[in-house]
């Protein structure tokens, strides 16, 4: 450490030094990303030695802009979103020094993909009711259960896992958080085909999987608290990007409207204008949120963004299929595939329409998010809880 404070100028200097020592044109991609991590320019708000410099998070944009201008490779964040957005902050917050050193670098560089082993067939919105068991056996835990809606499980090296370690306690208190090696015997990943025809997600069967106690994150029984860090970061990582006008789902519809006058009807025109307005308003709300974050005044507005986008994506893509008329009766391809990454606006209108149905389910259903807004933002009284003081094993499941 030079002793200099880390401001925008200093970050620019260090970024230029990285570029000089490892010219992107002649440096292999992984080597460049590893050098960037070791220079503390991966995520500048992380501690030194773990890819960061302890700088304010808002300064990351300085580094990203310089590197983008120099044509440096990025770590393809969409492919490793669960690692970056969920696993990393949890490891940083609760991991041992050894765990941080072992996992964070290959995670950020993208050499190791992560998945999330949270949801279960019997525990969706009520995640804390999960039933996957972890039983202590010497220095290890033996895990049995089934996880579901697990994206990237088929490409993942590691999974963040929550499992029940004490069924005699109320549901929130008997959970422990682990890191699961997806290559271990007993881990079986099966594609779960969705209504789009493809299998973006998986089901994961865990049968007698041995997880060493050294891969526990946080204390035994503290898993719910640790998982809150993961879930909070899931919602933060949505949004924050600057989007141009017509940058989202409304883009292809507006384009089709302009290019194909024969599709226009008065009814569709009224509905298109209403949705165009809503999409532009939502974009401005996102922009205002971004300005708040940059100004260091984060507000509760972020918790609403996903709700708005889910509904809009569904309505706009629905209108698009209808606008296309006869073509809307067709579908591009029902072939079962396992895509590496998800693009909500990718493929054609029919796919967009069907895929958008997931937007109000994944990452918290819209109904649960409305409860969260009502209770945490507006301070309305919580639902009466019948499960708070009941041992997990005695719950109706």
């Amino acid at each position: 450490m030079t002793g200099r404070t880390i401001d925008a100028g200093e970050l620019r200097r260090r970024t230029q030094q990285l570029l000089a020592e490892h010219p992107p044109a002649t440096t292999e991609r992984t080597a460049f990303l590893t050098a960037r991590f070791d220079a503390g320019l991966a995520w500048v708000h992380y501690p030194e030695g773990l890819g960061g410099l302890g700088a304010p998070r808002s300064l990351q944009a300085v580094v990203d802009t310089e590197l983008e201008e120099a044509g440096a490779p990025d770590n393809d964040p969409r492919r490793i979103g669960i690692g970056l957005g969920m696993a990393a902050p949890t490891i940083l917050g609760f991991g041992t020094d050894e765990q941080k050193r072992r996992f964070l670098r290959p995670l950020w560089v993208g050499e190791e993909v992560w998945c999330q082993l949270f949801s279960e067939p019997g525990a969706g919105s009520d995640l804390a009711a999960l039933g996957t068991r972890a039983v202590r056996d010497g220095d290890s835990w033996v895990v049995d259960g089934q996880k579901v809606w697990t994206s990237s499980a088929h490409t993942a090296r590691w999974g963040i896992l929550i499992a029940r370690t004490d069924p005699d306690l109320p549901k929130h208190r008997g959970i422990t958080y682990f890191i699961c090696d997806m290559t271990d015997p007993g881990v079986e990943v099966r594609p779960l085909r969705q209504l789009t025809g493809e299998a973006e997600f998986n089901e994961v069967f865990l049968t007698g999987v041995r997880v060493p106690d050294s891969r526990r994150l946080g204390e035994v029984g503290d898993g719910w608290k640790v998982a809150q860090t993961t879930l909070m970061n899931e919602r933060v990582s949505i949004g924050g990007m600057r989007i141009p006008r017509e940058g989202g789902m409304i883009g292809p519809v507006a384009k089709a409207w302009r290019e194909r006058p024969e599709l226009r009807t008065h009814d569709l025109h009224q509905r298109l204008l209403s949705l165009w307005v809503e999409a532009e308003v939502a974009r401005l709300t996102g922009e205002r949120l971004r300005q708040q974050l940059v100004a260091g005044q984060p507000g509760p507005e972020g918790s609403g963004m996903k709700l708005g986008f889910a509904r809009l994506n569904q309505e706009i893509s629905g209108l698009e299929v209808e606008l296309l008329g006869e073509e809307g009766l067709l579908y591009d391809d029902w072939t079962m595939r396992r895509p590496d990454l998800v693009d909500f606006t990718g493929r054609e209108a029919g796919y967009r329409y069907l895929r958008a149905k997931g937007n109000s389910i994944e990452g918290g259903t819209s109904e649960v998010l409305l409860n969260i807004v009502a209770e945490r933002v507006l301070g309305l009284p919580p639902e009466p809880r019948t499960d708070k003081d009941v041992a997990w094993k005695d719950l109706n499941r």
Partner: protein
Amino acid sequence: MTSQGDLLYTEEEEAVRSAVRSLLADHCDPAAVLARTESEQPHDRELWKALADGMGLAGLLVPEDRGGQGASHREAAVVLEELGRAVAPVPYLTSAVIATETLLACAGDAAAELLAALASGRTVGALAVPFATAPEAAHPRVRFDRGALHGEVRGVADAAAADVLLVPADGGLFAVDTGRDGVTVTPQTSLDRTRPLAVVTLDAAPARLLAEGAEADAAIRLGLRSGAGLLASEQLGLAEWCLTETVRYTKERHQFNRPVGSFQALKHRLARLWLDVVNTRAVARHAADALATGSDEPNLATALAQAHAAPVAVRAAEEAVQLHGGIGMTWEHPVHLYLKRAKADSIALGTAGRHRENLADLVDLPAPATP
């Protein structure tokens, strides 16, 4: 890519807000507003004096060298948020925004003199067009004949509070003093009695020319555009009041041995309303900033703001009535003042549908060709 401008509030803007809010808390509680709507004097002249004369807020849009405060639409929008929150019966939107912006676009000494008078707040002005007129729409004109005006304009907001009317006529825009012979202002029974309408009748009314021809038309359009853009901030304040009061009420009101606000059916409605209010804040700030700086196309920003904010304010007020249950239906509870203001605002300066149709041209999403 278009620039979005600053969608936040500056420290100065927050200072304006807290000054206005504390004035309104002391002098404009809902019971007093309700009582005033049934009096002979629907406008609150004392409150106007405090806002305009005392705090200098009538001249925010006017440069200092023309007798104003040299602020901008951004600060005026914050004033309107607070006035909307209180459904305050003062002619701020009509005089300090619409009439003032119209005069700003008129060259000449007559306009300059009147502009300074409006900026001081000691003179109240009103643009004599029907309050429902959208910025780009046609509006009635009275007849100019032998140095005087003849004709009638209906539905003029706050005309009864005005000392001077800006009257579009054949040949230009004229100023008419309301106290003169030949000028009659007859109050109409209005849906929103906190911003009452009136019929202006001119019978050989003496008039001063402010602007002619295209200059007059452009000035009127700019006045109405600023009015429509900043009305979104009033609608934001109004919607916020409805949300806040309804949340407070549903936390306190008990039925079935629970606060009614603990029922999911109500929580979800209030959470959705909160989302609408959050969106309205972004779009209202965007319009105010666009009008202040010219960034991101003021015509588009204004149409977008009205297309969104008008229905949100109406929904907020309607939800407030419904979720207050029986008490919300009474004359005694102030929520009906907000409902009436919101509904009237949704027609004022062009409906949401009209602004959406305007957007169709602005963003190139044309209507189907008529066969």
